C-alpha cells in the first residue's frame, strides 16, 4: 500500500459492483419517482439541487459580468435587480438549505445509525415533491418576468411598490419551506427512534449531531418564514396593513419575522456542513475527533443561541439601543461554538496519520475560509462597526465566505467522500484534487476583494457604482470565472466515474462509520443484518481489529 493514501481498493481485475443494490433492485423512471428508499430520494435531491445550483450559478455569472464595468450597461437596472433576487432565492431556498441534509443527510443518516430507512419514508418522498413543486414554481416565475424584491422580500417594497411576481415567488418559497420542515421532522424522529442497538447518543457520528441540531432549527424556524410570507400575500392582496404605517402597522415587524427564520437558516445551512467536516477530518487523519463532546455540544449551542440573534440584521434600523446591546452580546456568544469547532478540528490532526485526498483538501479549504467568514461575522455583530459595514459588499463577502467558502466546500468534501459508497465507484483522484485547488483560488479571488469594497463603502445590490471601485470588481469577476471552472470540473469527472471509475469496494477509505461496513452501493435495506454498535464513534482500533479478523477468516 502506498504511503500517500489510505485508499484500499479491491483487486480491479476481479472486483465487481454487487449485483443486488439499491440502484439495480428496481428499474424504470417510475421506480425512482415513486420510491420511498431514502437513498434513491437522496439521489433525486442530488440531481435536482445540482440543477438549481447551476441555474443560480449562471445568474451569479450575469451579476459578475454586469459589475465588470461601473455603468449599468449589460442589462437594465430592473433586469439586474431581478437577476440578483433570483440568484439569492434559488441559491438559498433551493440549494443551500436542502444541500447537505437532503442529499448526504438523507442518504447517510439512516445508514450511520444502522437503520433501514428514515422513520417516515413516504413523508420523505413528499418532501422531495414539495421541494420540486417550489423549485419549478420559482423557475416559472423567472420565465414570466421574475421578481425584484431581493431575496429578503423587504416590506413595504414587496407589498406596495413592485409589480413583479412577488406572490408566486413567495408561494414557491412557502411550499419549499414545508419540504424543509418535513425533512427536519423526519430526521429528528429517525435519530431518536431508529438507532441501532448499542448506539447511544454519545456514540453517534458528529454528522448526526449537527444534522439533528439543524433539523430542530428547520422545524422551529421555517413556520415563522411561512407566516411572514402569508402576511406579505395578505398585505399585497387585501391590504390588511400589518406592515403598513399609514394603517397603524409596523414595516419593521416584517424584518423581525423574516430574520427570526433567516438567521437560524444560515445555521440550517452551515451545521450539516460542519458535520461533514468532522467526518472527513477524522477519517483522513485516522483519529477520533478531538474533543468529541465539545464538538457535539457546540452544534447544539449554535442551534440554541442561533435563535436569539436575529435582530443583528437591524442594528441601524431604529430598534432600541438596548435591544442592540442584547442582540450584539448574543451574537458574540454564538461565535464561540464555531471557534471551538475550528480548534477541535485542527487538534484532530495532532498525532494523526494524515493523507490529502480530495475530501480532505476541501475540508482544509473549509477551515480557512470559514475562519475568515466567522471572524468577519464578529465585525458585523459588533454594533459599532456594523454601522459602517452593514448593507455594503462586506456583508456580501462575509455571507459568501460562510456559505460558499464554508458550506459549498463542505458539500463538495462530502460528495467526494461518500461518492464511492453512493455509486460503488471511485472518482478520479488527481483531477479532483486539481478541482479543489482551482475552487479555492477562484473563491478567494472572487470574494476577498469584496471585503475591501465593503470597507470602502460600496453598497450591495448596485447595478452601477463609482468608477474607483472598478479594479476590485474586475478581480472579483475574474475570480468568478475561475470558480465556475472549479464547479464544472466535478460534474464532468463525477459523471465520468459512474462508468469508468475504479470499483470502490465496501470501505475504500477504511472509515469507521456504520455506513462503510456494508456493500457499496448499499442494499435497498442498507444492511443484511442490523449492526450492533459495541464501540465508540471514530474507533479506528476497532476497525483494524475487525479487518484483521475478517482477513483471518477469509484465509481460513
Amino acid at each position, binding site marked *: 500500500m502506498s*504511503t*500517500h493514501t*489510505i485508499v484500499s481498493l479491491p483487486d480491479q481485475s476481479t472486483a465487481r459492483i454487487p449485483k443486488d443494490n439499491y440502484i439495480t433492485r428496481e428499474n424504470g423512471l417510475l421506480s425512482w419517482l415513486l420510491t420511498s428508499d431514502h437513498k434513491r430520494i437522496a439521489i433525486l435531491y442530488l440531481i435536482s439541487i445540482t440543477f438549481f445550483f447551476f441555474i443560480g450559478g449562471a445568474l451569479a455569472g450575469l451579476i459578475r459580468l454586469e459589475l465588470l464595468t461601473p455603468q449599468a450597461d449589460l442589462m437594465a*437596472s*430592473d433586469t439586474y*435587480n431581478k437577476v440578483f433576487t433570483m440568484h439569492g432565492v434559488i441559491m438559498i431556498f433551493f440549494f443551500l438549505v436542502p444541500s447537505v441534509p437532503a442529499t448526504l443527510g438523507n442518504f447517510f443518516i439512516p445508514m450511520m445509525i444502522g437503520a433501514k430507512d428514515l422513520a417516515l419514508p413516504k413523508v420523505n418522498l413528499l418532501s422531495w415533491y414539495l421541494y420540486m413543486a417550489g423549485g419549478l414554481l420559482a423557475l416559472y416565475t423567472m420565465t414570466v418576468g421574475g421578481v*425584484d424584491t431581493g431575496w429578503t422580500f423587504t416590506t*413595504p*417594497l414587496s407589498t406596495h*411598490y*413592485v409589480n413583479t411576481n412577488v406572490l408566486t415567488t413567495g408561494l414557491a418559497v412557502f411550499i419549499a419551506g414545508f419540504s424543509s420542515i418535513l425533512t427536519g421532522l423526519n430526521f429528528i424522529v429517525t435519530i431518536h427512534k431508529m438507532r441501532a442497538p448499542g448506539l447511544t447518543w454519545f456514540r453517534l457520528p458528529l454528522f448526526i449531531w449537527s444534522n439533528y441540531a439543524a433539523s430542530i432549527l428547520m422545524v422551529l424556524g421555517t413556520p415563522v418564514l411561512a407566516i411572514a410570507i402569508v402576511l406579505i400575500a395578505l398585505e399585497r392582496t387585501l391590504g390588511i396593513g400589518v406592515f403598513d*404605517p399609514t394603517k*397603524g402597522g409596523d*414595516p419593521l415587524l416584517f424584518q423581525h419575522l423574516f430574520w427570526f427564520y433567516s438567521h437560524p437558516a444560515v445555521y440550517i445551512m452551515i451545521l450539516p456542513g460542519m458535520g461533514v467536516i468532522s467526518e472527513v477530518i477524522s477519517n483522513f487523519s485516522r*483519529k*477520533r475527533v*478531538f*474533543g468529541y*463532546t465539545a464538538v457535539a455540544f457546540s452544534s447544539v449551542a449554535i442551534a440554541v443561541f442561533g435563535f436569539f440573534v436575529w435582530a443583528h440584521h437591524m442594528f*441601524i*434600523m*431604529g430598534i432600541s439601543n438596548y435591544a*442592540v446591546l442584547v442582540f*450584539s452580546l448574543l451574537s*458574540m456568544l454564538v461565535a464561540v461554538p464555531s471557534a471551538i469547532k475550528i*480548534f477541535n478540528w*485542527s487538534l484532530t*490532526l*495532532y*498525532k*494523526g*496519520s*494524515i*493523507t*490529502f485526498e480530495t475530501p480532505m483538501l476541501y475540508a*482544509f479549504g473549509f477551515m480557512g475560509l470559514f*475562519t475568515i467568514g466567522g*471572524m*468577519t461575522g*464578529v*465585525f458585523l455583530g*459588533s*454594533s*459599532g*462597526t*456594523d*454601522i*459602517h459595514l452593514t*448593507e455594503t459588499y462586506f456583508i456580501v463577502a462575509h455571507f459568501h465566505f460562510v456559505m460558499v467558502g464554508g458550506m459549498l466546500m463542505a458539500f463538495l468534501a462530502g460528495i467526494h467522500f461518500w461518492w464511492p459508497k453512493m455509486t460503488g465507484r471511485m472518482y478520479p483522484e488527481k483531477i479532483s484534487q486539481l478541482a479543489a485547488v482551482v475552487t479555492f483560488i477562484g473563491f478567494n479571488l472572487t470574494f476577498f476583494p469584496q471585503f*475591501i469594497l465593503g*470597507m470602502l*463603502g460600496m*453598497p450591495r*445590490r*448596485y*447595478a452601477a457604482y463609482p468608477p*474607483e471601485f472598478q*479594479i476590485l470588481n474586475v478581480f472579483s469577476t475574474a475570480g468568478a470565472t475561475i470558480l465556475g471552472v472549479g464547479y464544472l470540473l466535478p460534474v464532468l469527472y463525477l459523471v465520468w466515474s459512474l462508468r469508468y471509475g475504479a470499483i470502490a469496494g465496501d470501505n475504500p477509505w477504511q472509515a469507521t462509520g456504520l455506513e462503510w461496513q456494508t456493500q457499496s452501493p448499499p442494499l435497498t435495506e442498507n444492511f443484511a443484518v442490523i449492526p450492533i454498535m459495541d464501540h465508540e464513534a471514530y474507533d*479506528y*482500533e476497532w476497525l483494524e481489529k475487525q479487518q484483521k479478523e475478517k482477513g483471518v477468516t477469509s484465509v481460513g
Partner: protein
Amino acid sequence: MNHISPVIWQFLVKWLTNFALLPPEASKIAPQMDALLFFLVLVSLIGLTIVVLLVVSFSILYNKKRHPVAVQVEGSTLLEAIWTIIPLGLFLVIFVWGALIYFRVFTPPANAMNIYVVGKQWMWKVEHPGGQHEINALHVPTGRAVQLTLISQDVFHSFSIPAFRVKREAIPGRYTTVWFEATTPGTYHLFCTQYCGTNHSQMTGDVVVMSPEEYRKWLASSTSGVSLAQNGERLFASLSCAACHNARPDARGPSLANVYGAKLALASGGTVIADDAYLREAILNPSQHITQGYAPIMPTYQGQISEEGVIALIEYIKNLNSDYRIEQTLNSTEMPPGSEGAAKGGVTPAVKGPVTKGTVKP
C-alpha cells in the same frame, strides 16, 4: 509589460498607487471606528494565522509518510477551556468597544444642528432649517455637530456616508436620527444602501463638507428666502390649524406654544414627551394622541400633507414660543375667528378643512 492589456495595466497602477482599505476619515467618529476595525482585522489575522499554522504544521509533522500510525488522543478539558475562554474574552471586549461607538453614533449632543432628510424612490431630499432645499446633496460645515432626522415617504432607504462611517435607515412612518461632526472639507459619497427598487444604484449623491465661512456663504446663496419654519407657518395657516390651536380660553385644541419637548398628559392616560415623532403622529393620526382635557375632534391629515410638509409644521411648532405667533397666523388666514368658531359649533371630526367649509357654508 506591454503584453498585458494596457487598460488593465493602467487600472492596476492606478489602484496600487491609491490603495486604500478604508475611505478617507472625514468625521470625528471615523478614527474611533477605524481603530476598532483595525483591532478586528488584527484579531482575525492572528486567529487565521493560528488555524493555518496548526493545520500546516500538523500536516507536515503527521502526514502518513512521516507518521504512519496515528496515536489516539481523546481531547483535553484544559484546551477546550482555553479556546472557549480566550475567544469569548476577545469577543466581549469587541462587544463593549463596539457598543461604545454605537451609542456615540446614535446619541446626538444637545446643541447639534438639525437637518431633515426625506428619502423617496429614488432621491434624497434635504431640508435645512434656513429653507435651503437640496436633492441628492448635503452641505455641512466642519466643526459643528449635525444631526440628521430621516424619514422615508415610501420604502426603506438607508443614508450612508462612508467617509463619516455613519449610516442610518430611513423608514416609512418613523423618524430616525444620526449625527456626525465633519472634520475635513471635501466632497464625499452619499449612498442609499438599502435596496429600494429599480434605480437603487442611482440614489446616490455628494456630501460637501465646507469650512464654517464657506458654509455661511453657501447658506446665504442657496436659501429660498423662506425658512422651513416659515413654510410651516404658511401650512399651519392654510390647513387652518389655528382654528382650534389658537390659545384662546375656549379653544378646542391645546395651545402649541412651547409644546415641543414638553411632557404631555394624554387622554388615554400616561404621559409623553412631545418630540418630532409624537408631533408627526399627532398630526397624521390624531385620535390616538389626544391631550388630556380635549375632545377627540381633530381630523386626520394622513394623505394630505407630504413628509416635507409635516417636517415644516414640526419645525414651526418647535420654534413657537409664544401664542402671539399663533394670533398672527390666525389673522393671516383672513378669517374672522369669531364666525369661524360659531360656524363650527357642532362639527364632527370627519370635517377636514374648517377654512373652506367655513367660507362656503354661510
